């Protein structure tokens, strides 16, 4: 659905690159998280996806159409929400929707009413936006993003400034859109818990470079990690090696995906290793984030 290929962007001639040859892919129907510290290049990446920011190199394709070459066509089925949603304050929510949707080349009153109902703004949609709370603005932003009936939704820090109820509500709506309408979602956030609860895959940016792309545990594609309690670690590693296992660090053994842990235990026991405990270890997103962050320290730190 979204291909971000070797994208490079530098603001100013002497500045460090905001994005440095970043590539990742968002598959159709998935909820993809774009993670990174402040200034990592997440919003720049979203800006490039929407053609608001020009890339120095590389290409972004949405639904197979290049944003750089045919921006209008690429964005036809894309909706976007930015952090701190901005509207024409003196107009009502409805008037805002009408004006903004007009720039997508259509206005369907029935669809608009339905979308407004879906985001829970029916009662207040004719009030001036200046009277809206932050949560209501975010819901209006979601409504405007949904009005082109998008196949891809780009959410740039969508829950910034929302209260806990608002965050939970927004998260549930995002899940619902993905589950029931099959909307592909790219969620750009620095809130690990939010990404962990909503996304199925993530990319982590650090200093404008992609340092990770994959599943939430960080081990997808390689295998599973088991914490082993054994009497002789070296012997266990040798015996496990015959089963394709590898030592991650002392006490932690990696096993290829699909391999049977029972066979590993049998092999260890057969080799004379006393096995006192085997635990499947799942790396949390926070652990994953900290690990890749440790591996790639920030500039000047």
């Amino acid at each position, binding site marked *: 659905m979204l291909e971000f290929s070797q994208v490079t962007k530098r603001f100013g001639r002497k500045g460090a690159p905001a994005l440095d040859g970043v590539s990742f892919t968002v598959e159709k129907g998935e909820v993809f998280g774009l993670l990174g510290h402040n200034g990592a290049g997440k919003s720049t990446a979203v800006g490039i996806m929407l053609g608001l920011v020009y890339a120095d190199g590389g290409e972004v394709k949405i639904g197979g159409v290049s944003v750089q070459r045919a921006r209008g066509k690429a964005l036809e089925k894309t909706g976007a929400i930015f952090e701190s949603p*901005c509207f024409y304050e*003196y107009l009502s929510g409805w008037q805002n929707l009408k*004006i903004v949707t007009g720039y997508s080349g259509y206005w369907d009153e029935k669809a608009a009413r339905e979308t407004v109902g879906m985001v829970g703004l029916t009662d207040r949609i004719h009030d001036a936006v200046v009277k809206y709370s932050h949560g209501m603005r975010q819901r209006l932003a979601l409504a405007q993003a949904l009005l082109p009936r998008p*196949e891809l939704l780009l959410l740039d820090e969508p829950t910034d400034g929302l209260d806990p109820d608002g965050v939970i509500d927004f998260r549930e709506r995002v899940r619902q859109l993905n589950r029931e309408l099959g909307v592909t979602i790219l969620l750009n956030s620095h809130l690990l818990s939010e990404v962990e609860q909503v996304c199925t895959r993530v990319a982590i940016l650090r200093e404008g470079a992609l340092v990770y792309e994959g599943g939430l545990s960080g081990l997808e594609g390689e295998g599973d990690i088991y914490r082993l309690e054994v009497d002789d670690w070296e012997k266990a590693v040798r015996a496990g090696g015959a089963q394709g296992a590898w030592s991650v660090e002392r006490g932690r053994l990696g096993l290829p995906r699909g391999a049977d842990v029972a066979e590993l235990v049998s092999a260890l026991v057969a080799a004379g290793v006393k096995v006192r405990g085997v635990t499947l270890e799942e790396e949390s997103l926070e652990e994953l984030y900290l690990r890749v962050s440790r591996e790639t320290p920030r500039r000047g730190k």
Partner: protein
Amino acid sequence: MPILNTEHRTPNTDYGMNGFWRQFKGELFRLFARKRTYIGFGSFLTIEALVLYFLQKPKVKAFYERMLERNGYGFEDYFSALTLGLIILVLTVAILGTLYLALVAGDIVAKESEDGTLRMVLARPVSRFRLLLVKYLSCLTYTAILMVFLGVSALGVGLIDRGWGGGLFAFLPEQGVFSVFDFWPGLGRYGLALVFLTLSMQTVSSIGFCLSCQRMKPAAATILTVSLLFIDFILSNMPALSEYRHWFLSPRLDQWVFTLRDVIPWARMARDYALLFGINVTCFVVGWVVFQVRDLKS
């Protein structure tokens, strides 16, 4: 219960003239929905009333009476609604017109860029050129509506004070205009002057629009527009630069007053308005080129 009853499918979109018209109407609606538009229009009415007040002063009336009667015209016949309307229009535009249009045009892109609404709109499949064209045309339309409002309200104020009838006395010594017309020809000349004044003011809006497309705050775009026009006016009126007056914009912007001469110099006006049209197009193109290459980031 399904999240949506209608099919979740991107609708048929219209990027042709219908779509353009919808966007243009939306932009115009946005401009006229602002409270400040009506505050501005109210300010113009206040200034018109203020000018009328000063025109009632005995010494002002005596000045016009002297001027008319010295040339063989009756004061009561020519110090009419049309004459008052013209004086009020000229003074109101001079006092507030340029500043107000610079404010509106200076805001049109820069304010949206500052507020963040531009990013929301440009996240849509609309090109920057088209967005700017919609905004530019709505800005020109706004200018035209404002000028018609000023022309009609100035005449209305004159009618309230002097009633129907009487001729038009056009006295603009800077431009060498001293003419008198009967009511109907006078009304025609008043309308013609308003049309050309509107065309002149389009250039003020175009300059403001061009600056609004640059990477600057809306207030800076407004101040720069007013400053440019003010400097141009000062320089064009310096005796030492009289030989180079044709280099400046102000004399071109003043061409509308020639519609009030007995014999309208159409060829000269056509040349100068073609030049102003060229400046307008240049302003749009420069604004668009600068805007096109800009990164729009929060």
